[in-house]
């Protein structure tokens, strides 16, 4: 019991400090952290799949769907409540994943990766052809409100940031708990030997289906959060390069802990942002070099810095 508290403390403590310090931080920091959390949700879902030995190159499907669900709610129904938008994003993605899961959960390895990517590209293609939703230009998401109260720009940033921090704590607690359940702890077993898992009496297909839905809900949540933070959504969110970036960040982060995705995406966003500023012509090289360094020196991702140290200690 004590161990669980410790792991989560690492996440909750900095987030609580950030929430308290939020009003005094520069606006761009709030924005960067909020965006990183949005991406962190998606990466957390990918981490769940990766622990099961599955790589999805189509997480952009649920990320985009979550964003469009939240955006459509604002555009069509005029709803802009921050909680409603987040929940609708996650719910829409989970529903689609539940349906697709019956097919996708039967595949592994490259087939799983390609199939997930194919579905995301279908959504991309559909959105680009839909002039009513702005085609490739997308459309604006209304400024999120809190219980019907419309705040000024600076307070809105803090409000979304605080809600994102709170959501992170809830989600991390949930995922952490899930990984302790029988179904959740099957992940490494499925990765190592599916057949034995079946012999034990567990349904691998069912376990993967559940993980697929959870990962999708997280991606949808991340998409909705990103959409309302940025204030604009477009089909690019479903494009395979977006999904590829999530896989990139997952590898960068490592699968050691529920904290890893959030730390990984914060570091990724920070590197990228400064690379844009200091080497506008070669920012991709900076990102590529950092990826190379991580792969060469930390093959298990950034989180392995901490686990490796603990092993030695």
């Amino acid at each position, binding site marked *: 019991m004590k161990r669980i508290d410790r792991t989560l403390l690492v996440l909750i403590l900095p987030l609580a400090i950030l929430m308290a310090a939020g009003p005094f931080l520069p606006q761009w920091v709030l924005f*960067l952290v909020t965006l990183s959390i949005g991406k962190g949700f998606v990466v957390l879902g990918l981490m769940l799949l990766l622990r099961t030995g599955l790589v999805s190159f189509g997480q952009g499907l649920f990320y985009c769907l979550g964003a469009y669900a939240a955006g459509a709610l604002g555009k069509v129904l005029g709803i802009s409540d921050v909680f409603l938008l987040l929940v609708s994003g996650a719910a829409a993605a989970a529903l689609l994943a539940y349906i697709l899961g019956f097919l996708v959960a039967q595949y592994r390895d490259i087939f799983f990766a390609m199939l997930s990517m194919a579905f995301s590209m279908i959504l991309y293609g559909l959105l680009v052809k839909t002039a009513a939703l702005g085609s490739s230009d997308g459309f604006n998401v209304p400024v999120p409100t809190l219980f019907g109260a419309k705040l000024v720009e600076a307070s809105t940033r803090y409000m979304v940031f605080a809600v994102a921090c709170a959501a992170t704590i809830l989600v991390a607690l949930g995922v952490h708990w899930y990984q302790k359940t029988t179904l959740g702890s099957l992940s490494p077993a499925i990765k190592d030997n599916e057949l034995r898992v079946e012999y034990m009496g567990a349904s691998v297909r069912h376990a993967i289906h559940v993980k697929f839905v959870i990962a999708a809900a997280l991606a949808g949540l991340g998409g909705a959060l990103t959409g309302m933070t940025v*204030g604009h959504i477009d089909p690019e969110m479903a494009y395979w390069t977006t999904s590829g970036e999530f896989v990139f960040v997952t590898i960068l982060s490592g699968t050691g802990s529920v904290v890893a995705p959030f730390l990984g995406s914060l570091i990724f966003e920070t590197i990228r942002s400064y690379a844009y500023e200091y080497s506008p012509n070669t920012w991709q090289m900076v990102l590529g070099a950092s990826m190379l360094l991580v792969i060469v020196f930390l093959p298990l991702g950034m989180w392995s810095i901490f686990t490796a140290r603990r092993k030695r200690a």
Partner: protein
Amino acid sequence: MMQKRSGSGRILFVAFATVLIAVGFTLSAHAADQKPIKIGIVSFLSGPPAGPFGVPARNGAEILAEALNEGGKVPGYGTKGLGGAPIEVVYIDEAGGTTKQVTEYRNLVQRQDVDLVIGYISSGDTLAIAPVAEGLKKLTVFFDSGTPRIFEDASYKYVFRTGSHSTMDSVGAALYVTEMKPNIKKYAGINQNYAWGQDSWSDFEAAMKILAPKAKAVTSQMTKLMSGQFGAEISVLLSSGAEVIHSSFWGGDTESFVLQAAPRGLFKKSTVVLTCGEHIMYRLGNQIPDGTVLGGKGTVGIFAPNTELNRWFQKAYTARYDVPPTYPSYRMVQAVLGVKAAYEKAMAANKGMTPTQDQVIASFEHLSFDTPSGIVEMGLGKGHQAVTGISYGTTKVVKGKLTITNIKTYPKEKVNPPEGVLSKDWIESGFKRTK
């Protein structure tokens, strides 16, 4: 392995996170120098749009900012920098999509403390940035981007666009081809399958319905962006019997299309209209078949008026970058000169004192200013959206060199909707000037 109890990892993590934020903090805490005016320039520096648009635009900004800072170099704009204050330029890459662009825009404004932002080629980026600029109350000037939606769907105080929107390209093209072929029966299109290509074609089709009611659109080919291979589409166009083929292709797609379609005789069979073909004319040169109709989204480059300002720009740009400036360069110059004109007008109204942002905005609205592409008037979107005229011409290779003949220039009133009317409605109404 998780059982081992050692706090060092956690402490390291917390320390790392703290350092990360602290670093960000100090970098942001740069006290903004009051003297120079810091302009964030956002343009594609990587990816497919960089070569044809992004880099020529960036170069236009660079050469103009340097000449303005020297002072007395730019005809008609004698004062140094902006009203005497030197211009400091920060370049940002526009690649990466709207999420990244909104992040970088916020960083420009809140971390780098720029005084204003000039930029954005992609329509999606401008649509995403406009509400953010309004929220952050930062003067932001879009120099390019096609979509009319920005000021037709919303209205902004802090956002300006100093280039005409894309309606003009399609209307101008329809005017040109119907004057060229008054009895046209069949036309077709090949456009990229995303908002730009779709909007360009639907505007062209709508304009053709008014200008040549008897003509029929026989086929509209929508190709994947940057696919580079148009074999099947060219076959369809060849067998369609279209007299005119409309295309809003840009960059590598335009080059591939010309190089693949010309040997198959498409340019002989039909008149191909490349609405933004001007920006590839120096790259392809005499490989562009005779009789191709080229446009440049305005009166720019080869279509630009023969003024002292334009001659200076052509000469200075060509000397520096070895190629003549194309429309992205011209559009960037329109933006920088627009800001300069507005700033100095506000300064004069403020008795020579440094004007506030609100004063600059007030003098920018409905402003007319001189540029290498002629007079630009902020005539739409409550004074925030520029209108210009547009030219089209036909190519002819003379002694191995590409020339443009039969140039026709349409004045701004003829190719732009009046204030308060949506572009789409204006075309469908038969180009009515009154509501």
